[in-house]
């Protein structure tokens, strides 16, 4: 590989990790805003830079999710569930170490998938029709019940509220505006980033401000290590493989991103765990599942891109645009006409994962101190980034107001002991579910039969039903004290 490319990859990974770690800036946003910067470059370094930013940004979110309970990117929402409790217990180094290694493992595993299985997997992904996609998303929605630790009903309520807040805007099938209350700015609905930042960053800041007055606990770093013993990793091996496989598969599906991958992997890890009650209280398995899966989705998402020219995620759609600008024709012929470009993408992806691990490990000692920066200084910085990040998303002040309002909503929900993660899961998944449901119904002329007769769809529905029923009927231990 060209050493100049290595420099670009290093730069991309570093920027990506920083962007991922700063609440308010997301990978998709910075990558899309950087595409014009690459116009003057040759296609190879441009793609290497963009791919490595993508890898870095998905990984960097882990840092603030763990140390501040503010997910830096949507992909790390699930990491907050166990990462933050572990850090609060005084083991931020262990939480970061687990997350970083799991990220590396997930990235490498999905690189193998990308190199070995791109063609067959891409063909498989096109066979997933709207009905199958709907059932898959429904399955992920049912996992809300599994993720809600504190209280089942409050969790389901939170998920429904998230779904409800995703409804305003353009009708996903018919395109006309709906539930906009005559406000023209609402025609595009609420976008994910402002909602996420409001719910997690702004509401967490509110909580911090309240606690400041009480002189509350700060994280005391005890002598914990980033490096785990081999015996500890051995117990996680199966979890790592399962989560990476799930993440890769989910990543291949168009439009289904890193957050869905980590939700599914977390749900699966909890379902298989011998100690499910420890999930949400800072257990290793939760962090490992979420971080392995969200990094694995990146490689998965590159599969349809290189094999068929179909973007597997929002970021890939931007990469496709970059290909076009650099005079390359995305599509099934990319492999045949420009094998060197496909090579650059896959190699950059591999190297970027390795660099990501090195950058984050070297930075970890320094990063872990972040939780000890005085809150009086950290809070204005976080809020400034959130405001500018929301604005930069679409050059609109409206998004900033949305963030502030959802900050209040998040704070209120937290006071009522309603968990926030299900809200975001519902919010992310609802539009996908509705879009595919409508498309499937329109294809079948209004008949619901295909959901049950298409084999893939039927399998997902059965699993969803089983998981849903078991979550309601067999209440996990450790939640019973919540019921009156």
């Amino acid at each position, binding site marked *: 590989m060209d050493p100049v490319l290595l420099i670009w990859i290093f730069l991309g990974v570093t920027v990506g990790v920083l962007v991922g770690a700063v609440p308010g800036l997301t990978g998709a946003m910075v990558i899309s805003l950087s595409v014009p910067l690459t116009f003057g470059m040759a296609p190879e370094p441009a793609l290497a830079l963009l791919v490595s930013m993508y890898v870095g940004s998905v990984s960097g979110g882990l840092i603030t999710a763990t140390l501040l309970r503010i997910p830096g990117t949507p992909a790390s929402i699930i990491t907050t569930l166990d990462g933050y409790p572990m850090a609060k217990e005084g083991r931020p180094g262990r939480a970061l170490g687990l997350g970083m290694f799991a990220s590396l493992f997930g990235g490498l595993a999905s690189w193998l998938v990308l190199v070995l299985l791109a063609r067959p997997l891409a063909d498989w992904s096109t066979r997933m029709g709207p009905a199958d996609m709907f059932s898959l998303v429904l399955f992920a929605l049912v996992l809300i019940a599994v993720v809600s630790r504190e209280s089942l009903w409050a969790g389901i309520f939170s998920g*429904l509220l998230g779904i409800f807040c995703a409804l305003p805007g353009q009708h996903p099938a018919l395109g006309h505006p709906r539930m906009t209350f005559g406000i023209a700015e609402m025609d595009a609905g609420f976008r994910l980033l402002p909602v996420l930042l409001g719910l997690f960053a702004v509401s967490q800041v509110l909580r911090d401000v309240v606690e400041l007055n009480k002189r509350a606990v700060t994280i005391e770093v005890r002598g914990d290590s980033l490096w785990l013993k081999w015996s500890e990793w051995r117990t996680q091996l199966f979890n790592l493989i399962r989560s990476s496989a799930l993440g890769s598969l989910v990543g291949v599906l168009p439009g289904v991103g890193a957050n869905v991958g980590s939700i599914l992997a977390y749900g699966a890890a909890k379902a298989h765990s011998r100690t499910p009650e420890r999930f949400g209280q800072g257990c290793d398995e939760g962090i490992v599942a979420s971080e392995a899966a969200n990094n694995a989705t990146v490689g998965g998402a590159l599969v349809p891109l290189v094999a068929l020219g179909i973007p597997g995620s929002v970021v890939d759609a931007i990469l496709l645009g970059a290909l076009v600008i650099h005079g390359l024709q995305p599509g099934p012929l990319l492999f045949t006409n420009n094998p060197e470009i496909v090579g650059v993408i896959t190699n950059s992806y591999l190297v970027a994962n390795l660099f990501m691990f090195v950058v984050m490990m070297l930075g970890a000692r320094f990063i872990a101190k972040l939780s000890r920066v005085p809150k009086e200084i950290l809070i204005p910085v976080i809020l400034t980034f959130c*405001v500018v990040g929301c604005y930069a998303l*679409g050059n609109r002040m409206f998004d900033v107001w949305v963030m502030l309002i959802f900050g209040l909503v998040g704070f209120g929900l937290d006071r009522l002991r309603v968990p926030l993660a299900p809200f975001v899961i519902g919010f992310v998944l609802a539009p996908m579910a509705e879009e595919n449901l409508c498309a499937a119904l329109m294809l079948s002329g209004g008949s619901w039969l295909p959901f049950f007769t298409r084999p893939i769809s039927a399998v997902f529905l059965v699993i969803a039903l089983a998981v849903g029923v078991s979550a309601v009927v067999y209440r996990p231990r450790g939640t019973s004290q919540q019921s009156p």
Partner: protein
Amino acid sequence: MFLRWFSLVALTLAFHGRAGTFPTKPVKVIVPFSPGGGSDTFVRILQSGIQANQLLGQPFTVINVPGAGGTIGSRRAKGAFPDGHTILNLHDGILSAKHSGQALYGAEAFEPIAATGRSGTLICVSDEAPYQTLAEVLAAARKNPGSVSFGANFGATSYFAGRMLEQVYEGAEFNFVPAGGGAKRFAAMKGGHLDVSTFTVSEYVGFQAGGLRAVALLGAERHPAFPEVMTAREQGIDVDWDLIQYWWAPKGTPPERIARLAAVLREAMATPEVAAKFKELYVDPLFVTGPELTRLIGERDAKVARLSVRQAIELPDFPMMIGMLLVVVGGVAAWRGGRPAAMEAGTLKALAGLGLSLGVYVLALQSGRVAYVFATMVFMFALGAWLMRGGQRRWSALAVTACGVSGLCQVVFTRWLIVDLP
């Protein structure tokens, strides 16, 4: 006193601006779609042509305002100050958005500057499909109305292309299914979920090898890249529909400035680098301006206005369903959960302080009267100072952070990432 001086200065500046040649500051072009999309790529090619040859004398910056099929961005441009420094790029979607009811205004709300570039539209089927010609597709859609699925987003230009075919071939009825952008439609066709869809010529070049077959070009004559694909007219179907990119200025923009912008666009189109890029993307280098442009837009608007959006089936009312579920589950959750923790005085104070500082900051930014760096610096310092009131006071650290972060944000976002900060 200050105000008087200020207005005097402003007036002189404005006068100066009038006296000097337009443009006196950067021209912002609003692209109502995300970076990296088709429209964005198109605009950026012209932008690089304008910048590289210094055709404008001022920077030509692209501002992406995506959302709601382009209507969020077009509304922003519609309300912009009509001095020629803010313009809009939007293709035929501006016509279809109005006639499908997605926006209340159309082309009439703007002054057209120029039409630049045209992409041919192809009607495609999967190469495993039995159809060889568009006539066969339409015959099947007439024989069993609703049996042929047509991938097109409701109200988008491709949807109207489908409706035009139905209108010309009496009795034919497609089953329109929303299917996203070109790549997603290709995936759906390859997987056998869709029968027919439209693709632009450059999309077809990319996806053809993956299993697509063009049955007709909706253009006046055959495309040089695929001489074997018949036009719809040759098959006796009188439909001519392609995608034209237009540039718009807010109503009230002085005509001489519009003429200047049109001239710049014309020069940019003529530069060899833009011409070469357009050739690569199979964009016909069409250029129309002046009265001829008004006539062209009027003609195309009339074509779309004749048609309407037709809903095939009744879809479930999700807002209603989710709303009812929410009330029921919320009731259960409230009944099962305990009482919420009471609000303490400290909490309210914290909320009020934070809310006030954030609210004032965002309002100041929204007003556009305060520079971003200045507002941010003051906000950070004020908030930090308020938070420190009870504890240790770290003034210098706070001041350094406030200046550093606000300056960094300004530089990164405006110089590097081209965001339209106040």
